[in-house]
């Protein structure tokens, strides 16, 4: 198809740049065949302006509107779920924060510096009931509080298995290896050498 033919349609449907339009109109004045082509196409195109439409059946339109309604109810269900989940999340967050805050200050070890009692407080929070039993034994009664070089006691989760008695014995053995600290601020080397770990070896 020649460029002229395509241009005639572009001209007819006003899809030309102003400069192209001027150029095409100049061509129309000198090319009679082009003028006939454009006018013929224009005549048919005008007929198409009167093209009527067909309405969709009512039941089809109504079914679309029903799906619109169901979208709304699905949307409201989604928003209800969102509210429920948000409330649950806030509640869980509140409970967690409350639990953490209530845990603090439970430990009040007399004669200990503040930094040490804080680390021991953490120790108390993480140690389960089995460890509590260990604390009540004669060996642990003699045990003085101690801290590592970071002022933190390190325990591994593996220690808190279901077998409480074996855990207790491991702890007791571990405690026997410990050396009590009489003056924590003046014995940095001793602190570095003492680590209570969860290793069973």
């Amino acid at each position, binding site marked *: 198809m020649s460029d002229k033919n395509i241009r005639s*349609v*572009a001209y007819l*449907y006003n*899809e030309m740049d102003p400069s192209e339009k001027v150029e095409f109109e100049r061509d129309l004045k000198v090319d009679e065949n082009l003028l006939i082509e454009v006018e013929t196409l224009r005549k048919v195109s005008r007929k198409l302006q009167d093209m009527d*439409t067909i309405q969709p059946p009512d039941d089809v339109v109504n079914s679309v509107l029903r799906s619109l309604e169901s979208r709304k109810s699905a949307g409201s269900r989604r928003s209800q779920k969102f509210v429920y989940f948000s409330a649950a999340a806030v509640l869980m967050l509140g409970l967690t924060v409350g639990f953490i805050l209530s845990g603090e200050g439970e430990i009040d070890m007399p004669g200990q510096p503040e930094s040490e009692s804080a680390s021991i407080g953490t120790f108390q929070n993480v140690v389960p009931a089995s460890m509590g039993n260990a604390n009540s034994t004669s060996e642990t009664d003699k045990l003085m509080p101690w801290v590592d070089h970071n002022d933190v006691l390190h325990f591994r989760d593996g220690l808190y298995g279901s077998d409480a008695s074996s855990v207790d014995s491991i702890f007791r053995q571990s405690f026997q290896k410990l050396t009590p600290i009489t003056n924590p601020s003046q014995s940095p080397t001793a602190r570095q050498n003492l680590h209570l770990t969860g290793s069973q070896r």
Partner: protein
Amino acid sequence: MRLKNSDHIPRSYEQMADKDLVHLFRRKDDQLAFRELMNRHQAKIYSYIFSMIQNRETANDIFQETFTKVITKMDDTYNEQGKWIAWVMRIAHNATIDHIRKQKRFVDVKGSYDKESKTDFYERLPDEDSIGQQEKLELEESTSSLLKHISNLPEEQRTVVMLRHYYEMPFKEIAELTDVSINTALGRMRYALINLRKMFDEEHEKESNSV
């Protein structure tokens, strides 16, 4: 013709632009806004689908499928940048073309004797003439002669004519939608106009002969 329950749509909605109605529907879930949009465009969209498919039942299905997609996709896919109707037309066009392609692809290759129907492959072939007649009747009942002529155009030409004359879609957009160059789209329009002219002339000739 407008929707049955268009009486419930406030007059202010009728004066609103499409983009404002779309905004109302998306942001405030205003269903009246969507109904007004449907009122405005449903006939043209349905006419486009029907002229392409030429079968009322299938056209109904595709129309429904189009608007169901529009309703579900308006929240996430539509970005309110371009014209809403162009976006809807794209969905309608894709659904229509998908259907036409499926129809073209469907061939019954089972050539053996079918025990259930007690027929062979050739006996099971549909009677194309009878289907054509039925559809022709449907068309004659429901459309004007102009739409009938358009429905006789080849699919590519029909698409361009409908998109241009119903939606005043620029040829650049038509080219993008139909995945061809702008020159091809313009060329198809030209052939469509030439073919329609021939059809009008034939019709005119028939009428003058019968008189």
